[in-house]
């Protein structure tokens, strides 16, 4: 089946003219037609545009012109502005917004020949760990519990639609963004791979802003190599993003074949979370054993401020969000609710346009930045952030990469963890420290829990050393030989 191919296989098949880009795109559009009404992974499907892009790809292939992603059908998280295609950020407040410009990352993918199938669902403004906060409805995880097959599980978040679409074979790969784990956690929950690169590696220009010092665009795919191919296209210096790093983009794909012989892999004992399921601890130990068998050395390493990462994040991220989201005032674009006067218009527009989680975070951010509380909350959090980053700097003086679980649990059911915001926040305990420090991290599917649900391991690397991350993740992928597939996927009767 064309929808089961990896990006690397599809690229080779297209170049050898075994099938056309149109046939490949049509197969994915048919899968979306069949499964999206149930999964709700896409907010907007751009079928006609996708077919036109596929025809352009076929014409290029016929002329012998190939780019890295010619004819490869992808999903784009609906947080990336796409010229002429509605971009909602999963929010009512942006529901009428059609950007007149293309984000740098999506423009890079189009430059390299990609086909865009549509815009993937997400938590509102990327604020969430379950995709339950989207104004466009929840996304269903295509995996099912063995014991409780009727339970509808969440795909994780915030990039839940991206991860679910790739897992269910509705797209070969997808873009995501990761502010506190929004690529790695859904990748782990959906049994696919996803990388949050180093801060500055992928441009944020044209990505709807959540917390600018923590937002990282990155790719999802079903294999480590496919993620490397996508990141190679997405990455690169962009003068339009003042925090974009002017550093060369290495050959990430080649790094996947490097192996891990001689590498020192750090094991942070602080990631042994209280109440973590035994399956996850066992998988972590297995991952370390695989790396040792492949020639790496594993050493215990302290990351003493890990436990403070989440609380730090929940000051800094809402503070930045309250500032970034101030622009949604109902005046020049987006939703508007009329009011008695201007202030009333603002307040009604923002109450109607933002969902409860976004409103909560804006208010927390407003409070921690307000006069009299700035030092106690925001300034203190920035200092703890420095300590979290120092932990990683110290660790990387001794090791080449770190291995941890990606999440403290497998995918949970819709409705679980919803009664208390803090309970939902705890999902990101292993992923958030990397956003604070800006270091790259990748989730790679490594096994199943007792209930048949996928679990990921997280590989953490030095800043701008995604190559080692890919080398370690690919070694785990080879050893794990993860071949399980979700129950709901293209070609399966649902």
């Amino acid at each position, binding site marked *: 089946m064309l929808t089961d191919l990896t990006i690397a296989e599809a690229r080779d098949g297209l170049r050898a003219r075994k099938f056309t880009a149109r046939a490949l795109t049509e197969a994915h559009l048919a899968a979306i037609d069949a499964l999206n009404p149930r999964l709700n992974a896409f907010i907007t499907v751009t079928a006609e545009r996708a077919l036109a892009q596929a025809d352009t790809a076929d014409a290029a292939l016929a002329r012998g012109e190939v780019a890295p992603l010619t004819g490869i059908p992808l999903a784009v998280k609906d947080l990336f502005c796409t010229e002429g295609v509605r971009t909602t950020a999963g929010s009512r407040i942006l529901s009428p917004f059609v950007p*007149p410009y293309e984000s740098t990352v999506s423009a890079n993918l189009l430059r390299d020949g990609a086909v865009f199938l549509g815009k993937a669902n997400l938590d509102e403004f990327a604020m969430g760990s379950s995709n339950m906060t989207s104004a466009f409805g929840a996304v269903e995880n295509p995996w099912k519990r063995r014991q409780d097959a009727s339970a509808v599980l969440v795909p994780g978040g915030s990039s839940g639609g991206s991860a679910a679409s790739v897992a269910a074979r509705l797209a070969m790969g997808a873009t995501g963004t990761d502010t506190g784990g929004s690529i790695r956690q859904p990748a782990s929950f959906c049994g696919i791979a996803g990388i949050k690169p180093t*801060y500055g590696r992928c441009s944020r220009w044209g990505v709807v802003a959540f917390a600018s010092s923590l937002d990282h665009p990155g790719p999802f795919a079903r294999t480590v190599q496919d993620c490397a191919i996508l990141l190679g296209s997405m990455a690169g210096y962009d003068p339009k993003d003042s*925090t974009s790093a002017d550093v060369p983009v290495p050959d990430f794909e080649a790094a996947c074949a490097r192996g891990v012989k001689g590498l020192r892999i750090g094991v942070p004992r602080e990631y042994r979370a209280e109440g973590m399921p035994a399956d996850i601890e066992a998988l972590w130990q297995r991952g370390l054993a695989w790396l040792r068998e492949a020639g790496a050395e594993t050493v215990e390493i302290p990351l003493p401020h890990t436990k403070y990462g989440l609380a730090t994040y929940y000051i800094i991220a809402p503070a930045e969000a309250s500032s970034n989201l101030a622009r949604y005032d109902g005046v020049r674009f987006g939703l508007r609710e009329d009011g008695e006067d201007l202030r009333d218009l603002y*307040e009604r527009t923002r109450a109607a346009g933002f969902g409860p989680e976004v409103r909560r975070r804006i208010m927390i951010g*407003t409070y921690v930045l307000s006069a009299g509380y700035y030092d106690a909350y925001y300034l203190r959090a920035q200092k*703890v952030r420095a*300590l979290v980053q120092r932990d990683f700097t110290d660790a990387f003086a001794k090791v080449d990469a770190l291995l941890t679980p990606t999440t403290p649990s497998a995918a949970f059911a819709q409705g679980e963890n919803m009664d208390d915001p803090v309970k939902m926040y705890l999902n990101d305990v292993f992923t958030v420290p990397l956003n604070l420090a800006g270091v790259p991290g990748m989730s790679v599917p490594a096994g199943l829990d007792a209930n048949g649900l996928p679990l990921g391991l997280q590989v953490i690397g030095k800043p701008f050393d995604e190559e080692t991350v890919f080398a370690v993740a690919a070694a785990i992928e080879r050893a794990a030989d993860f071949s399980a597939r979700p129950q709901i996927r293209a070609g399966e009767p649902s």
Partner: protein
Amino acid sequence: MSLDPATVRRIASLARIRVADDELPRLQAELNGILGWIEQLNEVNVDGVEPLTGAVQMALAMREDVVTDGGYPDKVLANAPERAGDFYAVPKVVE
């Protein structure tokens, strides 16, 4: 520290978000839950630590001070609720 209803009202007002009276108790409880949990940062010794504003400390790039973009008012105004010629027509924002 615990937020009282008046403080929650004041924060909502600063954030320009309308909060109905019946939403207030739940919102107050949620915000207090989050802020109470955040208090754990007070355990951390941050003496002499410089605050970190971003993951990468970089000097901002400089470029020539010239116009590099623009000249397409229709695109700029494409999402305007109303326009008047090449301008946004908006509710009165200055009294």
